[in-house]
């Protein structure tokens, strides 16, 4: 098994609301990302998947956020590092791609200036021409046909797909070991999405980069990830290798989620859906947070938050009654 790059243990992120009130967005999650694997972090809006990734990068404001737990990256405890040390890791060792390529790039800077900023910040002492050569190489790597021309462009002159390529080029410019991609293709059209996903796989194959892919799209997960983590309302509810998860979902939420996705070639009159909606962060149900929407819920479910337990090889699930779910499925 490949070396573990990132290890998150019992990560809890809380945001300040009012003077003394804290609301919990991520409630004790633990997972790992190994070198050369693409791990999918799936869940619906508000489940805490983006907050988790921002906590790993320590990008939350210190004034209103409380992060506890342990984040280890290659033996370094990220949550305990001083800010300058963390700065060294961001971009250099772990980099991030965001959902909106158009708004993540600075609209009044040429692409070259933005790329140069990223490269020279982490590689002091490079000459101008060396930096330029690396910019060109970075754009070539992501399949931009005329890098010299693109470098002179402003973001508004590029399409969404091209901007996302530039973002990936920027993220990959310092050859990070871990790439966190937060909904990288959500704002893109399907044909462009296919190109970007193929590019991410190619980068993984060539550089053995570990990728944490945050998405709500189960189709994207099924095609690119080797392992999947499913989050619901701030907790991990299930974790499994991708084939195992789709073939054999244990948690009722995972099962409902997989069933409610319309699929090409399998036309149904009605889609199975999960009743109700995601609970509000400030009014979480007690016990299992999925219980109010769960078809298999029992009185015991709202008494205690179920723990994530091993239910098979590499397969973890946070539902003590998973056996019933499987029987009915």
């Amino acid at each position: 098994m490949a070396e573990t790059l990132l290890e998150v243990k019992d990560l809890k992120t809380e945001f300040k609301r009012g003077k003394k009130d804290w609301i919990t967005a991520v409630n004790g999650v633990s997972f790992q990302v190994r070198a050369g694997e693409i791990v999918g972090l799936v869940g619906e809006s508000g489940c805490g998947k983006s907050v988790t990734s921002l906590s790993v990068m320590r990008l939350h404001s210190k004034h209103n956020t409380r992060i506890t737990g342990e984040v280890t990256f290659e033996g370094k405890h990220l949550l305990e590092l001083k800010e300058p040390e963390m700065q060294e890791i961001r971009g250099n060792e772990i980099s991030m791609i965001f959902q909106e390529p158009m708004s993540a790039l600075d609209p009044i800077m040429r692409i070259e200036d933005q790329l140069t900023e990223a490269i020279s910040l982490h590689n002091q002492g490079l000459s101008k021409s060396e930096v330029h050569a690396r910019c060109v190489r970075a754009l070539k790597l992501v399949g931009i046909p005329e890098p010299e021309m693109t470098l002179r462009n402003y973001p508004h002159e590029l399409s969404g797909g091209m901007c996302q390529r530039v973002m990936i080029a920027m993220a990959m410019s310092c050859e990070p070991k871990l790439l966190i991609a937060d909904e990288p293709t959500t704002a893109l059209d399907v044909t462009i999405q296919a190109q970007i996903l193929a590019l991410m796989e190619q980068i993984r194959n060539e550089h053995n980069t570990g990728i944490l892919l945050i998405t709500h799209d189960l189709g994207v997960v099924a095609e690119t990830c080797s392992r999947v983590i499913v989050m619901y309302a701030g907790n991990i509810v299930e974790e499994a290798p991708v084939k195992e998860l789709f073939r054999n979902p244990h948690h009722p939420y995972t099962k409902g989620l997989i069933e409610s996705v319309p699929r090409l070639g399998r036309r149904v009159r009605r889609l199975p859906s999960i009743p109700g909606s995601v609970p509000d962060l400030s009014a979480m149900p007690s016990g299992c947070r999925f219980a109010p929407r769960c078809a298999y819920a029992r009185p015991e479910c709202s008494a205690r938050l179920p723990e994530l337990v091993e239910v098979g090889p590499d397969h973890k699930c946070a539902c003590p009654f998973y056996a019933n779910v499987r029987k009915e499925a």
Partner: protein
Amino acid sequence: MGDSSTAPLLSVRNLSKRFPVGKSFFGKPKKWVHAVNNVSFDIMPGETFALVGESGCGKSTTSRLINRLITPDEGEIIFDGRDIARISEKEMRPLRAEMQMVFQDPYGSLSPRMRVQDIIGEPLLVHTNMSAGERLKRVHELLEVVGLSAAHGERYPHEFSGGQRQRIGIARALSVNPKLIMADEPVSALDVSIQAQVLNLLRDVQEEYNLTYLFISHDLAVVEMISDRIAVMYLGSIMEVAPNEELYGNPQHPYTQALLSAVPVPDPEVEKKHVLIEGDLPSPTNIPSGCPFHTRCPLATERCSREVPQPKEVAPGHFVSCHFPGKDI
């Protein structure tokens, strides 16, 4: 599904619209965005007709032309036996009761300062002579129809989740008993589990009130589930029109094939066979000559850049605008 004996509810003939961009010194536009080019289709009573395509293909502009939020440059729009392409705003107003819209953004399409019952009742105020009491009664019925309760009418939109807001939008569209509902990406802002609920609701109310839908979406899997007939648009033109099973089972246009193959399948066991089409969408200000898709088409020949392909019927009701239909890419 409509059969040939009944007249279409809506018939669009050679519809075109272009928008000016930039002005020269004398106030003449420098360039034109060709948003919709020579689009024709029929919608039969009781069917769901879908327009699919990537961003910027003109699908939303088409719907706005149909309910005359914008005036077409050329072409006819025959709604219920009457050409409405050139009628005045005054004549158009009463007709809008018969064609209602459901919008994409459940947050932007409901006024934050109005109570839900006033939002749903507003079309009744505009289009009918009902008294306040009658309107309220009707609003309460509608709230029940879309799966909310009468008590929800007193609340404001911010108190509802995205899925519930979309239900409110659907109730508003239903209030005046329209013949045609135009739904522009009604589920793309919603989470998957909620998306399934809203799609099922659209299905249910269609059966109950015998509605005709014009469904606009970029999501091919959603379109497959809900539509009877589908038109695929690219750069303002229709590339292929076919009944549901025909289009998904036997796509003839290379663009349709590429689009279908780019959709990620939510099943890791299925081997992916994406045909990646190269490059980006050309700018709509400068539409390629001949077939608009020829710049990205793997099968393009010299003829494609010269001659605009005319729609050919390859199977009953299945029209393809391609010089070489049916070739696999």
